[in-house]
Every structure is written in structure tokens, then in C-alpha cells.
């Protein structure tokens, strides 16, 4: 059984349908990237999953129960939401002491998690003086207090420097290796591409796809670049074969819908010399944009 199970989840804020009949699940021992452009409904979905926002319809369960019915939820689920939402006057250690007390967690865990996220040196500084990156780490520390088997993170890479992002990736992978289910949202595919096993893509409140990362990559459109003195002739031949080819310079073609092998064979059949032939690796960010692309006029309607 999936650890996190979301079925037909819907949320309407007045006229705005923020989340629309969303269904997906998250397995233990995996990192699931929850992706979508800003405003796609990711945060609303996660807050419904955590019992902070009441769904208009549908269910979101963790280990078979809605969050609000979990006994001692902090022992099962750790969440990192908006990193700035910590009382600025409290020290990091005191913030964690409050969370540990409220979650019925051994106070000894406070120092353990501070070490884990490498914040031990800043433990007695006020959170108001923390950088966004430090707050993100503090959020992670709080989420890990109860040693939960499920972790839910909303845009945890926001505010992290490149080194911090790398650290976070390794950290999340490590958590999944320990058998935990990790659900992490982002508006940038590249951010989770190196971490996630499964990608869930959300756009304007709706599920676009839930698929393993490899499948997503395999389905991505590949681009073949060719340099040949008889470019126009090759272009016509390729288009006749059903591929899409575009003349980008006098002797250069960009081809999609045909592999390099197919292009080479076609050229050889017609004795067209090829000076250069390169396959460009699928660009995940392009896949993401293709899947969530909206014609310009629709975008305007949405934002109005």
C-alpha cells in the first residue's frame, strides 16, 4: 500500500479552483518530486495532505489515515513548509524545544537534529537573524525531530545556495535510502531531477503525469543536429519520412522525431555527405515546459 495516497483531491477558494480532482501516491523508500509552475496548486495540495487546509472534495491519507486522525503525527510525518514561519525571537534550540514538547518527542532529539542539519553552532542564535538557507535547515531539523517515516517538503531548495542545494539532494537521497517516503515540491525540474525516483507534475490544479523519472526522460523529445552542404535536400527527405526538420543556417539542420541513425541512413541512401551529426540529450526542463505549456492567451485568462 502506498504511504501517501491522494484521491480525487479538490480545493476551491471562492471562484478559484486551486486543485482539481488530483490523484497520485507516494511509496516508502522513494523520493517523489512534486512539480508544477508557481501557482499550480502544489502548496495547497501539501497543506490539505497535512490537515491545514480542508479539501472541498476527495481524500489525502498517510498510512491510510487523514493527517488529523494520526495519533502523535510528529512521530510519523515531518513537514517543511514556509521556512519564514518561525517566531523570530526564539533561538533555534528553543524553537525545536517547543516542537519537541508539542509533539511528545524526547528532548534529547533537539541536539541530535541540530547536528544532523549542521546548525549546532547557531543553536542559540535567534531565528530572526538567520539566513533563508539556515531557516530551511532549521525547518528540516524540526521535521526530523520525531524520526518520521514520511517527509513532506514544500520548495525546500528556495533560498539555498548551490552548495546547499547539493547538500539537500544528498540528504534527501539518504533519507529515502533509510526507507522513508519523501515528497518534495519544486517549480524547477532540474532541482529534483537528480534526487527523485518518481515525478508528479501538476499544472493549474490538475495532474499532468505521474511517472518514473527514466520514463519521463525516455519520452522526451530528442534533438539531432546535422551539418551538411545539401541541407535543404536532406530536410525535404526527412519531412517526407515524417520527421520534423528545420533549416537553422545554410548548412545546418535541427531535427526532431528521428534518431541520428535514421538521419544517417537516409543521407547515405541519397549520397548526401554529412560533416557533423550530434544527438542532444533530452533537456528535462524542456519536457517540463512541454507538459505544462499553455498557449499565451490562456495564461492571460488564468492570471486575470
Amino acid at each position, binding site marked *: 500500500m502506498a504511504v501517501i495516497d491522494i484521491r480525487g483531491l479538490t480545493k476551491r477558494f471562492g471562484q478559484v479552483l486551486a486543485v482539481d480532482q488530483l490523484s497520485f501516491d507516494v511509496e516508502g523508500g522513494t523520493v517523489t518530486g512534486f512539480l508544477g509552475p508557481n501557482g499550480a496548486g502544489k*502548496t*495547497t495540495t501539501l*497543506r490539505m495532505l*497535512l*490537515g*491545514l*487546509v*480542508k479539501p472541498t472534495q476527495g481524500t489525502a491519507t498517510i498510512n491510510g489515515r487523514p*493527517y*488529523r486522525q*494520526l495519533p502523535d*503525527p*510528529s512521530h510519523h510525518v515531518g*513537514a517543511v*513548509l*514556509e521556512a*519564514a*514561519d*518561525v*517566531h*523570530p*525571537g*526564539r*533561538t533555534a534550540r*528553543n*524553537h525545536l*524545544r*517547543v*516542537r519537541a*514538547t*508539542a*509533539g*511528545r518527542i524526547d528532548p534529547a532529539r533537539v541536539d541530535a537534529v541540530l547536528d544532523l542539519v549542521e546548525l549546532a553552532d547557531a543553536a542559540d542564535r535567534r531565528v530572526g537573524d538567520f539566513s533563508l538557507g539556515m531557516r530551511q535547515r532549521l525547518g528540516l531539523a*524540526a521535521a526530523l525531530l520525531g524520526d518520521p517515516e514520511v517527509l513532506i517538503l514544500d520548495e525546500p531548495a528556495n533560498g539555498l545556495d548551490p552548495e546547499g542545494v547539493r547538500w539537500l539532494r544528498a540528504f534527501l537521497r539518504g533519507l529515502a535510502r533509510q526507507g522513508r517516503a519523501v515528497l518534495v515540491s519544486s517549480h524547477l525540474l532540474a532541482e529534483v531531477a537528480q534526487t527523485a525516483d518518481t515525478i508528479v507534475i501538476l499544472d493549474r490544479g490538475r495532474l499532468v503525469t505521474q511517472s518514473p523519472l527514466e520514463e519521463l526522460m525516455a519520452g522526451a523529445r530528442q534533438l539531432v543536429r546535422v551539418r551538411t552542404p545539401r541541407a535543404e535536400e536532406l530536410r525535404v527527405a526527412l519531412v517526407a519520412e515524417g520527421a520534423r526538420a528545420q533549416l537553422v543556417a545554410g548548412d545546418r539542420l535541427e531535427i526532431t522525431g528521428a534518431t541520428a541513425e535514421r538521419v544517417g541512413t537516409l543521407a547515405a541512401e541519397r549520397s548526401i555527405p554529412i560533416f557533423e551529426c550530434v544527438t542532444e540529450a533530452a533537456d528535462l526542463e524542456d519536457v517540463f515546459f512541454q507538459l505544462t505549456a499553455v498557449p499565451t492567451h490562456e495564461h492571460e485568462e488564468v492570471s486575470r
Partner: protein
Amino acid sequence: MITTIRAELVKLRTTRLPLGLLALAAGLNALVAVVTSARAGSGSSFAIPPLDTTAGLRMVLTSTGFALLVAMVFGVTVASGEFRHRTATDTYLDQPNRVRVLLAKAVAAAGVGLVFGLVGAAITTGVGLAFVAAKGDQVALAAGTIARFAAGTVLGSGLLAAVGVGIGSLLRGQVAAVITVFVWAFGIEQIVGGLSRSIAPYLPYTAAATMAGATGGEGMPQLPSGLNPLPFGTVAALLVGVAVVLSTLAARTTVQRDIT
């Protein structure tokens, strides 16, 4: 429930606001007590009776109105602070039962509210008795009476803090809720109490202040003169009732709102 109350107490101990408010209450109380003592019997326009009279000493000892008021403001901040600093998310993640959180806040605030009353009563009593001693006067009130005023202040502060939690939960906006407390005590209770002597003793602040022995105002919300204070038990039941009504209203409405 105990866990949630303990968490609320840890929250209060780890921020500066509660201590700041306590210092504010203490400072205002000290100021009022000193000014009242100094002017007692001096025949100014306020006509405070001399300190060696029952009425004069009583006026100083019961000038604890700011302890009561600031305790109520403190209660407001216990509830509305969660929204001001957006910490409600964490609070409800740890304890998804929001009504339980509200109840824990009311209990924790009431407990700390008692301290406001204790400090207020200690200051006015200390200042009053010090002035009496300095003048070489007799203490005009029996020890039992002085203790009863102090006990009324302590109980009143605790219960008003719980009422404050109800107000803060219902309004959520900290500034609006604090202003409401002052408008209520200095405005609405004055008007309603002035219009009807029979309703006045049952108004929450007036009830708490008369329980604490106050008869007038002296820079604090003015009480209609000649009110008969209600018994401790009645005031306690009344204030608990107000806190319960406000909290129930909040629990059914604002407390159930989405935390976005």
C-alpha cells in the same frame, strides 16, 4: 492535553513578549500606586482621602487595574501571536486538534495571568504600605482585607487572560484585538455601566476590578461609584463563562479556517 499545555508554556518562556508585558503591567501599576499615594490627602481636585483612612489606603492598594488589563492583552497575544508570526502551521502540525490547542492556550494564559495579578498586587500593596510606614501612620485596613484585594486581583488577572485568548482567537489580528480590549474596558464598559447600575457589576472588566476591591478608577477604566462587588465565585463563573462563549464562537469559526 497536558502535552499541549506544556508546549504553550514552553512557547511563553522562550519569547520576550510575556516578560515585556509583565514589566509593562508592573511599571504602570507602580506609577499609579506611587502617584496615588503621593497625592493622598493633599486636597487636590482628585480628592484622594489621606492614607491613614480606610478609603485612602484602599484606593492605593486596589489600583491594580493595569495588571488586569495587561493580563487580558497578554491573553490576546497568546492566541493572535500564532497568526502574527505565522506559527499556527507548526502548532497545528504538532496538535491537529485545534480546539484542544485553544483550550491549552486558555489554561496556559490563565496560569501566567495569575502572575500578572500577583505582581500587580504585590507592587500596589508594597508601595501603599511603604508610604504609610514612611508617614508613620497606622495601617487602616485589616490584613484579611488586604489579602482579599490581592486574591481578587490574582484571580481576576488569570481569568481575564483566558478571556483575552478568546478575543485573540476570534479576531486573530493582534493590533485589532488589543485595541478591542482597550475600547471595551475604557469605552463600552464605561458607557454601558454608566447607563445601567444593575448591569455594571456583570461587565467583565468591572466585575474583575470590583473583585480586586477597586471602587473608582484613578487613571484606569473608571468604575461607576457605589457598586456592590459580586462574590468571588460569581465573578469567576461570569469570567469563565465569557471566556467559554468567546472560545466556543472562535472554535466554530476562525479556528477552523484553512491555514494557508
